[in-house]
């Protein structure tokens, strides 16, 4: 146990010495506060734009799906039922495949 700890300390010391030359240079090259502010602002603008786009796509899709379902429910009930069954089967297969892939990756 003591030996193991000693070996670890020795390795840590070696790594510290080895990395010294890499670390020295980086402290001097940190960008200014303005650079970081600009980076954050740009990212925030990008996130807002992406959120707006996602929301618009979501609302449009929701409207389309609701319209199709309402029309089929009142005009073609058989097609409505068929759609429901197809969506349920499709969703089950998709979930199954995703789960299998996840298990395989682990």
């Amino acid at each position: 146990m003591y030996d193991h700890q000693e070996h670890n300390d020795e390795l840590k010391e070696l790594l510290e010495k080895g990395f010294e030359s890499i670390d020295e240079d980086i402290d001097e090259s940190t960008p200014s506060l303005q650079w970081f502010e600009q980076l954050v602002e740009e990212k925030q603008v990008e996130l807002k734009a992406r959120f707006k786009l996602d929301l618009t796509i979501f609302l449009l899709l929701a409207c389309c799906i609701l319209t199709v379902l309402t029309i089929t429910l009142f005009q073609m009930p058989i097609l409505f039922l068929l759609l429901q069954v197809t969506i349920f089967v499709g969703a089950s297969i998709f979930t199954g495949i995703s789960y299998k892939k996840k298990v395989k990756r682990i």
Partner: protein
Amino acid sequence: MKERDLIKGAKKGNHEAFAILFKEHYPFLVKYLMKVTMNRDQAEELAQDTMAKCVEKIHQYNGKSKFSSWLISIATNRYIDLQRKKKREQNWQNEEENFRKLKWEMESRNEEWNDVLAALSTLSEDIRLPIILKHYYGYSYEEIGQMTEVPPGTVKSRVHHGIIRLRKELKIDV
């Protein structure tokens, strides 16, 4: 301003709080990424990418771990994602190139390309990464497992085998 207040401000979207937080942690983050990638350009690029991800995910930070540890987790995941995207063969060639470039950069600054860096450069990234996190930054196997999305047992075995190889390269008694 304390780090906790800065994080609070950042969660509210205050870009000044974000900037101060990032400026404080930037050297730590780039140093870590330099050790992992062995390439300055890639380390700086990944640091920017990590900070951008942090702006996006700041509401998920729960304060249980240090902010710097959380940044390292994000950086590690970004690095792993990047590596996955590249083809294995091409990746190996890139790593070789990275080491040569870093060696050249250090030699041109009259700094020594030491044995430890040379030994680390012989290890693949999936072994080098946990060794640095464990033996340089002092994270536990569980924490490294969470960061790299690998079971702690696998991390332990990679570190163990990596150290044996490192000791052999450095000619230290096992």
